[in-house]
């Protein structure tokens, strides 16, 4: 193979100070995109935290339930029917109230909070504090509080201060007996967790005067160890009336996220934000790459005069852009990762930096640099060498 001087690398690394400026510029763009996508992801992810914690392979919902906040409920007897279906080991209800739950701390005005309830003895939510505080939760009007709940509720910060808490849920004195961590989302600013009997006391109006626990929000289905999800789903769909929908848990999670991405203005805004980050990234990269090419224009023109062709220059610039995007990506990634941790701590949002997201942003960065490189090199390709000196 013919030998080639690694000009792209040499040019890029020759001036260390300049390289640092360029790399930090690209890193900035990377952080921008990571943040926007991160927020978007976190917000979407936060909406399905409850669903993710469900301990079951299949979930039963009302056919009318397009999203969790729709609060479309169904009769608990459907759960008894479902239990008879072959392959089903157990079915447990999950009760949720959000718009109708008003929490007042001290003398402040009240704020809506999401209240989730499980029957005692049902192992339906992956929240270890449920078992830990089992005895306390059996007490009258007791609840666990989500420590990621917004500060406006005025919940005590430390577990030892919970005793002193005085608050009313729907006008009824509430005792906080422990803490757990779930996360807030678009629709809810905080979470309380309690047992079904207490839930019934707070939401007596739930079933329009009937047994408040008669209407359930979700039915969580656990399968026999050897049962296949597909077959049980088929059986469930056959034996349940058409107003009940049986979905695999993962499918429900996707449906919920899609709903929020498409319908919540916030989801749209963060998508626009991510796009803006991309555009700003292109501008930054273009500035860097263009300035670099402009500074070397005479040398490149000399190469052109020697008989170097367009492909060479395009390759050269793209190679340089590739190095730049990788070099800029790594610190951007690290800084984003740290920021995610900090933000998750502060906001209670689930900021997770998955490898898939990282890969996506790396590709976006490479794309940004490629586009700007191609734009920046066009003058060099088009002009007569004499005009470039």
């Amino acid at each position, binding site marked *: 193979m*013919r*030998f*080639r*001087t690694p*000009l792209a690398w*040499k*040019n890029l*690394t*020759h*001036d260390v100070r300049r390289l640092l400026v360029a790399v930090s510029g690209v890193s900035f763009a990377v952080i921008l995109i990571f943040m926007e996508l991160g927020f978007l992801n976190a917000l979407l992810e936060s909406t399905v935290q409850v669903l993710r914690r469900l301990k079951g392979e299949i979930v039963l919902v009302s056919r009318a339930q397009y999203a969790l906040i729709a609060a479309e409920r169904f009769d608990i007897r459907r759960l008894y029917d479902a239990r008879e279906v072959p392959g089903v080991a157990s079915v447990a209800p999950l009760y949720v109230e959000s718009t109708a739950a008003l929490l007042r701390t001290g003398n402040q005005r009240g704020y809506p909070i999401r209240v989730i309830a499980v029957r005692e003895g049902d192992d339906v939510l992956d929240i270890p504090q449920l078992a830990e505080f089992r005895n306390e939760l059996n007490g009258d009007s007791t609840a666990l509080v989500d420590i990621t709940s917004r500060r406006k509720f005025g919940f005590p910060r430390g577990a030892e201060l919970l005793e002193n808490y005085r608050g009313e849920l729907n006008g009824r004195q509430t005792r906080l007996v422990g803490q757990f961590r779930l996360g807030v989302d678009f629709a809810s600013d905080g979470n309380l967790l309690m047992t079904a009997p207490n839930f019934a006391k707070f939401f007596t109006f739930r079933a329009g005067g009937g047994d408040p626990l008669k209407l359930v929000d979700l039915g969580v289905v656990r399968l026999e160890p050897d049962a296949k999800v597909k077959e049980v789903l088929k059986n469930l769909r056959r034996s349940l009336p058409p107003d009940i929908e049986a979905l695999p848990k993962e499918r429900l999670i996707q449906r919920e996220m899609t709903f929020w991405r498409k319908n919540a203005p916030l989801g749209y805004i963060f998508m626009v934000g991510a796009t803006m980050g991309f555009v700003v990234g292109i501008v930054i990269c273009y500035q860097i790459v263009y300035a670099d090419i402009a500074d*070397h224009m*005479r*040398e490149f*023109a*000399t*190469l*052109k*005069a*020697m*008989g*170097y*062709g*367009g492909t060479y220059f395009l390759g050269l610039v793209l190679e340089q852009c590739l190095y730049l995007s990788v070099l800029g990506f790594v610190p951007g990634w690290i800084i984003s990762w740290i920021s995610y941790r900090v933000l998750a701590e502060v906001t209670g949002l689930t900021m997770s930096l998955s490898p898939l997201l990282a890969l996506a942003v790396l590709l976006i960065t490479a794309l940004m640099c490629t586009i700007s490189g191609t734009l920046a090199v066009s003058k060099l390709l088009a002009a*007569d*060498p*004499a*005009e470039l*000196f």
Partner: protein
Amino acid sequence: MKATATEFASSVDMRATKTYALQGDQPKRVVRIRGLNHFFGDGDIKKQVLFENHFDAYEGQIVIMTGPSGSGKTTLLTLLGTLRTVQEGSIQVLSRELRGASGAELIAARRDIGFIFQAHNLFNSLTAMQNVCMAMELFNFTKSEMQDRAAELLTRLGLGSRLHYKPERLSGGQKQRVAIARGLAHGPKIVLADEPTAALDEHSGREVVSLLRELATKKKMTIVLVTHDNRILDVADRIVNMVDGRIKSDVLVQEANLIVEFLKRVDAFDQLSVGTLAAIADKMWTQQHNAGATVIRQGELSKQFFVIRQGEVDIIREDDGQSKVVNTLGEGDCFGEEALLTGNPRNATVRTKKPTLLYVLGENDFRDAVHSSESLRQELNKALFERQ
């Protein structure tokens, strides 16, 4: 005796571009420029910078282009080097027409050309050696071949101890020499250089000049230099002077020296200084004739003065229908001055005996030259008086 068609065709007047040797003796032509015009700007600010230029360059020739700044030398050089698009006229480099050439054709042409720019244009990120190698990477050299060649050239130019220095650690002159090595490294057939010695001291300037001379002689490179540097004029085979976008004079240095020698031998001119003779020589053009061609005919009006560069002619006087060869002239001899001075018609016919190359001076230029020296005129009158 009428001039036949063949005779006519066999006599070629080279007013547009000089030819300095008879066909067959001529070296290979590598550059051919005809009717070259060039404009800068567009619309109202369109300005013509080159006017109807004709220029040829031959294998192994070193051409120096001089002229005041803004005279179009560099523009001509960049057009020749495919660095600008040819607008009007024709440029052929190694038989490749540049006007309207495609991108691929331009790239092919560029690879036969080596450039040395006034600004060194070296990559700061590369060492001297790597910069030179960049010129060779387009060709099929191995890595070690490239490095050996680069090292050899750089050493030759006095940079042997600085092969691996980056430009920031080299002086202006050293950088210039790296750029020169880069322009020559791939063994181009044509080297174009814009003020290559401007940044060099006397010694390295000489070294560059001797290298160029060697490459022109041994490798048959054609070298075109734009320069104001008087110190290197002696390397030139040819000096082209441009003024206001036109080639004003094009002097083959050795040839000019020879012609001056010839002119000096003419009795009539022996009072003139070398400078005046050189100016006269510069105004002459060449004519080629096959054997047996009639150059001037007895009884014609006199228009020109001739110097024989190559070949032989017979002087034939015709009296009462009888032709008689009164003399035979050879290389270095002149004829035609007498009739121009007296204003009489030609008193003899001149016919070539062999293929002949003549230098021709027009009537007006001849008169100007004569008037420029009073002593010359007196001298001539005396000579003519004595001859009668």
